[in-house]
Structures are given as structure tokens and as C-alpha cells.
């Protein structure tokens, strides 16, 4: 239920940001552009994870779901030569299927047990990748995933994806679309039903919202977008293995959303952006980087539990407090 007066205020910055991203290939190096592509993929991942948390169900297997999408894409594209326009949707559907299977036992648990159980089931999937050489390639993973292709050399509609700029724009389109769809879902009746489950699941049951069904549904929707992100990742990096989807990566994802906050739609975007920036700036201190991120995580959890998204309202109420006014809602 968005307020119409605030939406016009929001769209201008959004257009400016998209414009900046379109302009980026003009000014940054090819290496930086690949980092930006990864960043865009991470945006999809973080925003879909934020959706997941709206019912209060934090998971520890979102990264694994991304891996499912990546593995599905890699295997389909490499072993079966499936073109991207079939491989990507198929990968997303497969990820939704896996999400559904995971959600059935998970929906029997809540809170911390849900969190831990999701981790255990995720590790189970990761060990499946490690164990079965066909088709997952064991510890070495799937290598040499073909670049996606649109047309052949000579076709008028041919796009050369060996050029990282083209893949960057390809990813940008998906990111913008995903963000748009996730925004609509967040503001929809279904989105509000999820938030209501977080607020009071008994009340939801009493007014006819089937809580279990909706918790399974959100897991699948979040899984869908994680699958898309994984699919893009597989095409971007060309090779994937079980170590890409270890717990450490999941902790980084959690750091993004903790730093940004999950209450508003914008929190995770702020989080991924600021933390990716810190990550790149800290590149010279490579070995010390986990320590830095560990510190950041702790400082935010202890001193700013709502994340950066609460910063503006806090500053506002601080200054209003200085002039002796009470904040009006």
C-alpha cells in the first residue's frame, strides 16, 4: 500500500542511479566492469534475501540456492548445450523446485531452529555437489561454461558476449527487472501478508491466511530470484565449484543486509553498495579483510541494530530533539 505522494519523490533518484549505471562502462576499466557485474548480481541476491526475511524467517541457505541456479545453468549450458533463453528460466524453475523441497521440512520449524536447519539442509546440498562427480564435477565443479550467445557472428542481431560491456548490460537489465518485480511484490497484498505473518502469525491464521503455505511460498519466490542470480553468475565467471558457496559467503550476504537493514526495501541496496565499496577499498589489506568485516558486523549489531536505513530517521529525530520538537508521524 504505497503512498502516492512519496513514490514520485522516489522515482527521480532511481532514474538517476540507473542512468549512472548505464554510463559506467564509459569510464571504468574492463576489470572494474566485471566487478560491477558481480555487484549487480549481488544486488539481486541481497534484495531477494531481504524478501525472505519479511516473514521473520532468516535463512542460512540463500547462497546455496544461488548455487543451485548456477549449477543448473552450468550443467544445462555445458553438458546439454541449452541456449541461455531456455537455460536461465529452467535454472530458476529448478531452484524453485529445490526451494520447495527444502521448505517442506523447514516450515515445521520457526526462528532459530529454522535458521540452523536451513544451514544444515544447505550444507547437505553442497555436499551433494562435492560427492557426485556426474553431473556436478565434485570438488572441481563445473568448468568452461560457455558464454551466452545471441546470434552468430555475421547475424545482424549478433551480440558478442566475450565483450564484458555487453554482459554487463545484459545483467543490468535483469537486475532492474528483478528489483522492479521485487518492489511490486513487497508492496502487494501478498507482501503485506508476509509482513503480517512476522507481526502475528496466529492473527493471520484467524483471518484466513494459511501461514504455512505463505512461508513455503516466500521461500520459493526468494529461491526463484536467487536462482536467476546464480544463473547470471555462472555465465559471468564461467566456472563454479562447491567452495564458491561456502558458509563464509553466506556470512557476507548477512553482513550486507545487517548493515543496510531489512525493514525497508532500500536497506539491502544501501548495504550491498556500501559493503561492496568497503570490500574494494580494503583490497590492499586482503588478509585483514575478514577481520574488518567481522568488526563491522559486530559494530552494527551492537550499536545500530536497524542498519544504515535507520540512520536518516535517527539524525532527523536527533535534530528535532535539539530544537525541542517531537517527531510527528
Amino acid at each position, binding site marked *: 500500500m504505497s503512498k502516492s505522494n512519496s513514490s514520485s519523490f522516489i522515482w527521480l533518484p532511481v532514474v538517476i542511479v540507473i542512468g549512472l549505471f548505464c554510463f559506467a562502462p564509459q569510464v571504468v576499466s574492463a576489470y572494474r566492469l566485471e566487478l560491477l557485474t558481480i555487484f549487480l548480481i549481488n544486488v539481486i541476491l541481497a534484495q531477494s534475501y531481504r524478501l525472505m526475511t519479511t516473514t521473520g524467517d532468516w535463512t542460512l541457505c540463500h547462497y546455496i540456492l544461488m548455487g543451485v541456479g548456477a549449477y543448473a545453468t552450468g550443467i544445462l549450458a555445458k553438458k546439454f548445450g541449452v541456449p541461455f533463453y531456455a537455460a536461465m528460466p529452467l535454472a530458476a524453475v529448478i531452484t524453485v523446485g529445490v526451494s520447495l523441497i527444502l521448505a517442506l521440512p523447514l516450515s515445521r520449524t520457526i526462528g532459530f531452529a529454522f535458521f540452523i536447519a536451513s544451514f544444515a539442509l544447505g550444507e547437505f546440498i553442497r555436499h551433494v555437489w562435492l560427492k557426485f562427480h556426474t553431473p556436478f564435477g565434485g570438488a572441481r565443479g563445473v568448468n568452461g561454461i560457455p558464454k551466452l550467445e545471441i546470434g552468430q557472428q555475421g547475424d545482424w542481431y549478433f551480440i558478442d558476449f566475450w565483450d564484458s560491456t555487453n554482459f554487463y548490460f545484459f545483467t543490468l537489465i535483469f537486475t532492474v527487472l528483478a528489483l522492479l518485480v521485487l518492489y511490486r511484490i513487497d508492496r*502487494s*497484498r501478498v507482501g503485506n501478508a508476509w509482513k*503480517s505473518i512476522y507481526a502475528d502469525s496466529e*492473527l493471520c*491464521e*484467524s*483471518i484466513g491466511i494459511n501461514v504455512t503455505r505463505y512461508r513455503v*511460498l516466500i521461500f520459493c519466490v526468494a529461491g526463484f530470484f536467487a536462482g536467476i542470480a546464480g544463473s547470471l553468475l555462472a555465465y559471468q565467471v564461467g566456472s563454479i565449484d562447491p567452495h564458491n558457496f561456502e558458509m563464509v559467503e553466506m556470512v557476507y550476504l548477512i553482513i550486507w543486509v545487517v548493515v543496510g537493514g531489512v525493514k525497508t526495501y532500500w536497506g539491502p541496496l544501501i548495504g550491498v553498495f556500501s559493503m561492496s565499496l568497503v570490500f574494494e577499498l580494503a583490497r590492499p589489506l586482503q588478509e585483514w579483510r575478514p577481520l574488518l568485516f567481522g568488526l563491522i558486523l559486530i559494530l552494527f549489531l551492537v550499536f545500530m541494530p536497524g542498519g544504515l536505513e535507520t540512520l536518516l530517521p535517527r539524525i532527523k529525530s536527533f535534530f528535532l530533539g535539539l530544537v525541542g520538537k517531537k517527531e510527528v508521524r
Partner: protein
Amino acid sequence: MSFFSVKGLSKHFGGLVANNSIDLDVEKGEIRGVIGPNGAGKTTFFNVVSGFYTPTSGTVEFKGKVISGLHSSKIAKLGAVRTFQRAALFPEFTVLENVIIARHLNADTSLLNAIFRHNTKAEAGNLARSKEIIEFLGLKDEQDNLALNLSHGHQRVLGVAMALATEPELLMLDEPVAGMNSSEKAVMVGLIKKIRDTWGITVLLVEHDMKTVMSLCDKITVLDFGEKLAEGLPEEIINNDKVIEAYLGADDIVA
């Protein structure tokens, strides 16, 4: 066949018998009160008939259909909806948004509609109906306030508004006047009567407050030690020796 019928309902928790083979029939359009001293098993009874607990034995039938053992959400879908003793609401949404969320059963809840918003007609209808319910219950002035900022009395009324938003045929109220002052109680009693008289909705309520039950209900069922002690019109109940005995020592008869 009664509109709402409980047959031989028992609920045990381990060795504890909270409800023991209770029978109860409610006719359409009736306001029925279920009372009893503390620990009589009222709350358990209410949770069983509203689908929050599964009965150990016995059945609950609504419009000829067995509803015991079904999910609460399913029972709501069939047209029997409950409220809560506590102020149950979605605190960070406005009053109007709370009621609109409660129109879940009458809305297009598909993901496609969530993304494309093509079904604007249904949503417009939900908005209009939500406003109607809010006005009917006298919450219009609070419509745009966050639910968490309401007074306790208004929060309880909002609970009823959300239940009504599901368009029920049977409204089950769990201690509707608990924790209210006397003027809030009077308002709530008036609203419950109005809901039945205007919209013909059957009401089943569990209540501790005798005065409210006496002035509101067409018929009263008294529970004691998990069993049905008496049933009848308010004047019969108030003169029933067994009921007086059960309440003796308890300070709250006609409190």
C-alpha cells in the same frame, strides 16, 4: 441440523482433562455466551472450536460440515472467524491497512496480481468495504492512525473489524470486553448487538464478565471443571442453584 453444533467435545492435555464431552448447539442469528468460573475450561473450549487446538474426541460442525481438526485459516474460509483475548493486530500498519489485510479471503492473492496489479476492481471493492466496516464500528476517526497507537478499547474493536472483514457468518469472540473500562464495555456490547441485528451474523462468545453476558446474550452455556453445568436463558441461568454454587466464593457473580 443446527447452524453450529458441538458434539461430545473433549480435550485432554496429558492427564489433565480440560474439556469433557461438551455438547452445544447454536442457532443462526443467535448471540450465545459461554461462561464459567476461572479454570472452567472456557479458553480451551474456545481454542478447540476455532481450530487452534485439535479435540481429543468429539466433533465441531458448522453448517453441517465437520470443522474440528481443520486449520484455523480453513475454518475462517468456511465462514467462522475468531478474535483474540489480547489486542491482536498488525501494529505497524494503519487501522485501514489492518482491515484491508484482513480482506485476504476476498482478494486476488495471486503472485501475478502482486506484480502486475491488473485486478484493480477487486482491490477497490476491498477498500470500499473496509471503510464501510470501519465506519460501522465507529473507528472512522482512527482510520489513518497506526494500530499500535490506539487505546486498548479501540484495539479490541479493530480486532472485531478485522474479523468482520473476512465476511463471516459466525463470529467467535474471546472475552470481548476483557481489560476494558465500563464505557468501553458498553460500546462493545452495543457493537456486538448491532453486528447481529444489522448483518445477521451469529455470535458465540466466551466471557468472564457476567454483567456483559447477561445483558448481551440470548442464551448462555455455563462450564465448570471442563463440563457443561447448565444452559438456558439469562434469567434461568442467574437463578440456577448449580450455577450459583459454582460461582460461590468466586467474587465475580454480577460483578
